[in-house]
């Protein structure tokens, strides 16, 4: 028996108002629908106890193991956070969609399930299903990244005041070419406003797992280095703090590429290589980036058929 002939199916297909949504009279102008997406999307439900409990199950059972499987992270610098026992603002460079689940998976337990993620309102909250999905799975909150928005800033600040930590990518989006981007001051502004410390995190290698505009997920190794918390002092200017955060990430990147001492000396000498790369033409920036291919991907590439396959 087909579904159409199933008992009740015919009656269901014939159902009309009020069983179904009413139609809109042709002569009545539709008022602009109240915007419930983007920065106006309400995420309170995702922080309810029920949703949090369900997210713990999903994070521990699915997201975290999957991110570890794909990105095989090596984590350094967690010892720098041992003295911290308060809500913090985690700031990281951003290269891939996998950054968020990966970082949430490596956060120490005391923050892992009490952290909200600042996600672009225009990208992650433009559809109802997307908004609900990301609000639930990664505890995302909408942040306006194209212009200053008081509502999204106030939401993040109030959550920090309420004991939630925040993961934010100050670059405002994934890197288009592999080099870092200039930081936006949002994270620093929040830190100054709420007096919460900022923890810089440098993530390396996730672009190899899933680059921007990429449609395939590859296995690769990644490195994540947690930096020393930066505390805003009384009267600290948000722009100064933003520069400090950006500089701290440069130093962490240098630390990964070289070693801690070398990086410290370069930092002291003011010669730390900037993550934003050289100011040059596109091809020279791509050339300077080099081919940072990890050992796992290299072995995968080795198995791939060469082109042209004759």
């Amino acid at each position, binding site marked *: 028996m087909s579904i159409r002939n199933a008992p009740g199916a015919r009656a269901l297909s014939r159902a009309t*108002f009020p069983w179904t949504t009413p139609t809109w009279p042709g002569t009545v102008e539709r008022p602009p629908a109240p915007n419930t997406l983007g920065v106006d999307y309400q995420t309170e439900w995702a922080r309810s106890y029920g949703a949090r409990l369900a997210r713990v199950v999903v994070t521990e059972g699915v997201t975290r193991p999957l991110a570890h499987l794909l990105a095989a992270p090596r984590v350094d610098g967690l010892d720098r956070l041992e003295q911290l026992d308060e809500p913090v603002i985690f700031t990281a460079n951003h290269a891939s969609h996998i950054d968020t689940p990966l970082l949430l998976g490596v956060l120490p337990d005391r923050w892992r399930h009490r952290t909200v993620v600042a996600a672009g309102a225009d990208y992650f909250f433009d559809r109802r299903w997307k908004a609900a999905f990301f609000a639930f799975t990664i505890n995302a909150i909408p942040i306006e990244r194209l212009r200053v928005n008081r509502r999204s800033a106030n939401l993040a600040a109030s959550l920090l005041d309420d004991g939630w930590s925040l993961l934010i990518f100050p670059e405002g989006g994934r890197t288009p070419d592999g080099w870092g981007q200039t930081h936006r001051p949002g994270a620093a502004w929040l830190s100054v406003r709420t007096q919460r410390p900022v923890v810089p995190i440098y993530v390396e290698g996730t672009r190899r797992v899933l680059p921007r505009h990429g449609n395939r997920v590859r296995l690769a190794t990644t490195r994540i280095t947690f930096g020393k918390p930066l505390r805003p002092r009384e009267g600290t200017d948000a722009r100064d703090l933003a520069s400090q955060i950006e500089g701290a990430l440069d130093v962490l990147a240098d630390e990964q590429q070289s070693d801690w001492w070398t990086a410290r000396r370069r930092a002291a000498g003011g010669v730390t290589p900037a993550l934003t790369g050289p100011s040059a033409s596109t091809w020279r920036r791509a050339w300077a980036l080099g081919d940072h291919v990890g050992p796992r991907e290299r072995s995968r590439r080795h198995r791939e058929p060469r082109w042209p396959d004759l």
Partner: protein
Amino acid sequence: MSRPGFVLEVDRSTPPTLCWHGEGFKLLRLPEGSRILYPPEPVDALKDPDDAIRQALLHPEGDMAPLPTLMKAGMRLTIAFDDISLPLPPMERPDNRQRVIEAVLDVAAEGGVDDVVLICALALHRRMTPAELRHALGDRIYDAFAPHGLLLQHDAEDPSALVHLGRTDHGEDVEINRRAAESDLLVYVNINLVAMDGGHKSVATGLASYKSLRHHHNVRTMQHSRSFMDQTRSELHTSNWRMGRLIAASGVKVFQIETTLNTDTFPSAFGFLQKREWEWGARDRASFLAVSKSLERTPDRLARSIFQSIKSPHKMSSVQAGEVEAVHAITTEHVYRQQLVDVEGQTDVVIFGLPYICPYNVNSIMNPILVACLGLGYFFNLYRGKPLVRPGGVLILSHPTPWAFNPVHHPSYIDFFEEVLADTTDPVEIEKTYEERFATDDWYRHLYRTSYAYHGVHPFYMWYWCAHALDHAAGVIIVGGDTKAVHRMGFKRASTMRDALEMAEDIVGRDPSITHFHCPPMMIADVH
């Protein structure tokens, strides 16, 4: 900001429209091209009604001194207030009357006034029960006045409690409550639900006797009121205004306090009643289905008590005090602001879905005469300019119209229905032949004075209310009504709205223009 009312032209995409049907509702799918009148949304309520009342008492309208300066030790103060017929449905506590009278009593207490009496201005309506008085006035007022016999109900049949103030230049007797007339100050506290209420009608009708009321509650007046909602074209009001001016000229000092309500009529469980159908959300649709399906299986008596227990959340939208006419002009503007809907042109057929309540069946049964009065007297007259239906058009009412009466509240209605309407339905003939006998019947008079019965003449007035509509329309069809009851009143009965529309075509011709009056909430069609 509330949206104004508007006229919707039905097209293929218009969802079925809600139609009251007594203690229930129906969804109607009207022919394409029909019109539906949607009322304005409720206006904003006063943010601080108590402060607004206080300000109104201190800064009265017209030629009237502030209330505190009128209060003197040793004076006689009477506070009259509207009865159970207002508002509809009864509002949630605190009622406007409670708020206003408490404020007036505060001023009276500050002025050292000892001789204060409260009078329910019920005219020929039934007396209010203690519970109804307590609800309207609040516990503080009721407990302070009722036990000491200072909370009275107007008795239009007690000669010793009435005083004849004279005759108007049209020969109308003006006889009102003696205590009110002989007080140093009469404060009248009103609730204006529709534009018909208030003004001089408050005292000249609410505190009057049958001898006085018969001058404007008659067939001729009703037929010449076009309509009751437009005082400038209402013979009923013109007569009341003449009487009111005579009352003032007789030395009765009236400090009028009028309040208006917004049309937030039903609590949230019935929120769908106040929404436009295409804006019903999932909750509204679920509520509608749950309520309407439950009601289909609910015994009439239980359904009636469920609906009669509803207390309306409507809120005070304005308050003004002072000289009667100056106050009422402002009040009327507020009512129009809330209720007027512009309508272009009349229609061949108009559909009125009638609810479970009218001014005369609060906590009671909507008997067939009240159904007729609600449809032909009230809904038909909810217009300004021209009636919504053209002369010779058809009125379709939707109501179960049961042959059922409340013997306590409506004893004379039963005899009117059984005896008078069985003989004739012509208001003029009824007035001429039967009115006086019912009006002077000792048993009805006894029940009116000592029980909770409407006056013996009251069903006549209800029928007179229909006179204008009966004169104007060529046919009345009641959808879903009790066959015998409908036929007794001289109307036609249809099983479904489709049948009713087909029957209407026999009178007004093929493809008639149809207008559905979408109520609640209340509105007035401003027909151009």
